[in-house]
């Protein structure tokens, strides 16, 4: 009897996990049939550009994120200054700003006709050509844009790593003759290195995955190359092979991330004897620290948010119409659907892993959860190829048997989108659900059973109340991630189905930046929700240990 149950769990986990792993497997399988002609062409023309630009973009973003993230984390975790408590969570705000939206905003802001240049001209009386002004629509600009919104990944992990270091470490350094500066370089930084590397790897993965920014800035990278090969040259196989190459780069980062995560645990010293006391400095230095920590928030969130709001306010009479409401409805219902599906899958996997500690269950779930590292563009191609093939077969069969055509029943509907989102965001929801499930120790199940509850009663009275928060968190996280997602949505959306992200992209591509502001602002506002959630947990952990 037991064995039968176990086997049901095994299949219930294995099949959906393999379905989620399918897109990435398809991408790698495409390498088995090299399309020589296209490759020849790519290699002679743009492939070098793709590789170099993608590497520069990811590398540059990584360095930018380390500088901004580690620097602010160190100041916040070590010094007492005016506004520190506020900045501690405000530094997370740029997470709510999708990279493509900040890129559109700064383009409009720094444009010749934009508010900044107009103001300078008004002030000085200069005219076109009289002065030099920085351009941002090139690789360097893209790096700055991405660094500004991705540094919180490093900041979050580094801040925890720094503030978890016990005060006795600092004191030990001082008694061994190190100055505070030497302590930072020789003890604090090396100890926080795994955490910083993990955050950097995550930021770099996002940089590799970016499509909206680089496409708008005209930087040719892998993601734009995949789009071009798929839509411009009509070569599915070529696009899939480019995708495989990109995934190869990302896998290196993934290994770095997982390796660093393991290190974090080694470096973490378990119980901390005494939390580091914040260092007090004079008023002048306090102002300097405040200014330094304000800069990332200012340029990563406040300035673009104000610009977006002002655009949206100036022409909401035109843009806020029936079409916009349809957009919101489409986006929200799609995101809600994807969130529910993904969280249900996460619950299934989490319970499977809990009830069956077996390689047959653990390994496929791990494989399926790796999708978070794979760029949306790649997943979209990996979903499109097998589904289009299946559609063709189903269509033919249906015509033979029933005399009717089904058309693109899988690849042309929301099914494809929801599948792609589930692949990309499973890890997010699984992480949250598993964290919740971990709080329910197996002995609690036993305790409830011995107190007279049936297995269903245990689920209702122990699991549901204890899991509620983490499931809601998982739903929210996936909902927002789906709302922000651009490249996979662009490729897989059903014909004439528009979302906020797609519409923002389209309007910005038509250089109608002011019109793009309203949908963009909607995305930013919703994206604030999980950031607030995160900020609250940051505050809680910090104030929990006085």
């Amino acid at each position, binding site marked *: 009897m037991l064995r039968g149950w176990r086997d049901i769990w095994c299949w219930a986990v294995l099949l959906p996990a393999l379905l989620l792993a399918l897109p990435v497997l398809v991408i790698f399988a495409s390498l088995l049939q090299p399309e020589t002609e296209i490759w020849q062409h790519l290699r002679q023309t743009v492939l070098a550009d793709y590789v170099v630009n993608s590497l520069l973009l990811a590398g540059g973003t990584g360095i930018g994120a380390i500088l901004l993230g580690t620097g602010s984390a160190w100041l916040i975790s070590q010094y007492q200054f005016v506004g520190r408590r506020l900045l501690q969570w405000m530094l997370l705000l740029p997470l709510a700003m999708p990279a493509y939206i900040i890129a559109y905003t700064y383009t409009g802001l720094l444009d010749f006709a934009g508010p900044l240049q107009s103001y300078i001209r008004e002030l000085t009386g200069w005219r076109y050509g009289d002065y030099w002004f920085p351009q941002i629509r090139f690789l360097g600009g893209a790096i700055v844009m991405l660094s500004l919104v991705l540094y919180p990944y490093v900041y979050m992990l580094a801040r925890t790593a720094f503030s978890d270091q016990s005060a006795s470490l600092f004191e030990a350094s001082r008694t061994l003759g190190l100055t505070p500066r030497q302590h930072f370089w020789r003890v604090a930084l090396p100890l926080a290195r795994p955490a910083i590397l993990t955050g950097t790897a995550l930021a770099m993965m996002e940089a590799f995955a970016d499509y909206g920014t680089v496409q708008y800035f005209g930087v040719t990278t892998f993601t734009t190359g995949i789009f071009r090969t798929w839509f411009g040259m009509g070569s599915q196989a070529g696009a899939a092979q480019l995708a495989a190459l990109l995934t190869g780069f990302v896998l290196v980062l993934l290994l770095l991330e997982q390796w660093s995560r393991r290190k974090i645990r080694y470096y973490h010293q378990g119980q901390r004897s005494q939390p580091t006391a914040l260092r007090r400095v004079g008023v002048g230095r306090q102002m300097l620290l405040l200014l330094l920590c304000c800069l990332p928030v200012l340029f990563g969130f406040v300035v673009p948010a104000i610009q977006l709001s002002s655009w949206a306010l100036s022409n909401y009479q035109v843009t806020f119409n029936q079409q916009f409401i349809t957009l919101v409805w489409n986006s929200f219902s799609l995101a809600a659907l994807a969130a529910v599906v993904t969280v249900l899958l996460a619950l299934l996997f989490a319970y499977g892993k809990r009830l069956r500690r077996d390689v047959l269950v653990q390994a496929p779930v791990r494989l399926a959860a790796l999708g978070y590292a794979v760029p949306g563009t790649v997943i979209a191609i990996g979903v499109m190829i097998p589904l289009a093939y299946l559609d063709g077969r189903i269509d033919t069969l249906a015509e033979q048997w029933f005399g009717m055509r089904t058309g693109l029943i899988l690849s042309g509907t929301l099914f494809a989108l929801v599948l792609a989102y589930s692949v990309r965001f499973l890890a997010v929801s699984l992480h949250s659900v598993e964290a919740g499930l971990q709080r329910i120790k197996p002995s609690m199940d*036993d*305790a409830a059973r011995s107190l007279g509850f049936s297995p269903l009663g245990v689920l209702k009275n122990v699991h549901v109340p204890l899991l509620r928060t983490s499931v809601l968190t998982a739903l929210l996280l996936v909902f927002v991630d789906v709302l922000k997602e651009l490249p996979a949505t662009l490729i897989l959306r059903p014909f004439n189905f528009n979302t906020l992200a797609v519409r923002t992209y389209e309007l910005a591509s038509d250089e109608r930046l002011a019109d793009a502001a309203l949908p963009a602002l909607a995305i930013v506002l919703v994206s604030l929700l999980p950031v607030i959630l995160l900020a609250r947990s940051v505050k809680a952990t910090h104030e929990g240990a006085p």
Partner: protein
Amino acid sequence: MLELQQVAVAYGGHTVVKEVSLSLAQGQIGCLVGPSGCGKTTLLRAIAGFEPVASGVISLQRQPVSSTTLQLAPELRQVGMVFQDFALFPHLTVADNIAFGLGKLSKAEKTAQVKQLLQLVGLPDLGQRYIYQLSGGQQQRVALARALAPKPRVLLLDEPFSSLDTELREGLAREIRQILQQLRITAIMVTHDQNEAFAMADMIGVMEFGRLQQWATPYELYHKPANRFVADFIGRGVLIPGTMLDAQQVKTNLGTFTQRYVSTVQAGDQVDVLIRPDDIVHDDASGITAQVVEKAFRGSHILYQLKLHSGELVQCLALSHHNHAVGEQIGIRLDLDHLVLFPRT
């Protein structure tokens, strides 16, 4: 009350509990001790109904609850359990935790019972706290109250003191024994600490490799161990070799002794005699001497590790003022109340 007949438990083809038979009368407290991995927790979980039995029968009040053909679900057994990690529900208050198993009662009755139980375990004012606001010892009491609330037929305790400080353990063990006796609850506790078992139990079972080596009162276990494993596991002591002169007399390096009980050994048999530290008395007048190898000061006593001339090591519990240095020769005398000997194999 609680009876186990030839019970075996298996995990995936591997038998971890073999042929265990024991019984407890109403109100008796039993303890299962043994090294880790000996199957004692598994046996407890089989009684609770979390593990099926591979053979044998477990009965509660003469009613079988586990056999090869029957496995009553845990929630239908009326068995209370206190877990090693307490397994208290973090989303409920102390009072709600205790009331968790009080299914059908009215709200007023529940409140009254919870109040009574809180009183019983000595936490009358903590009903509205959450679990994380309690200390380890307080959590332990709440776990006990929660398990006692539905008036279980038998209470199972799985290493209940292992996560507590040593100073807390003994006091709590005594307190819990008082509560259980007051309520006349039949209970069985698993522990790896024999002092805890001595403090709690009416009957103690020693387990090794899934087998119950002996099921007896604490006194019997210490003074009449059934085999070498029990002799070694319970209390301190060493085995020194001896030769049987006849069916009752044994000659050792510490002298010749007579056993009162008739056993299966015969003249000429090689045996090992169990010597406890309190069997060796320090006596300066004695002709037998031994060299002090190690000493541990225990306040009222000193525990000496002694080396006999034949090279064997024995332990001696001497009064505190008999202070001798390591390396010194001291006189000893064997004061055996009764002989425990095992045939050499």
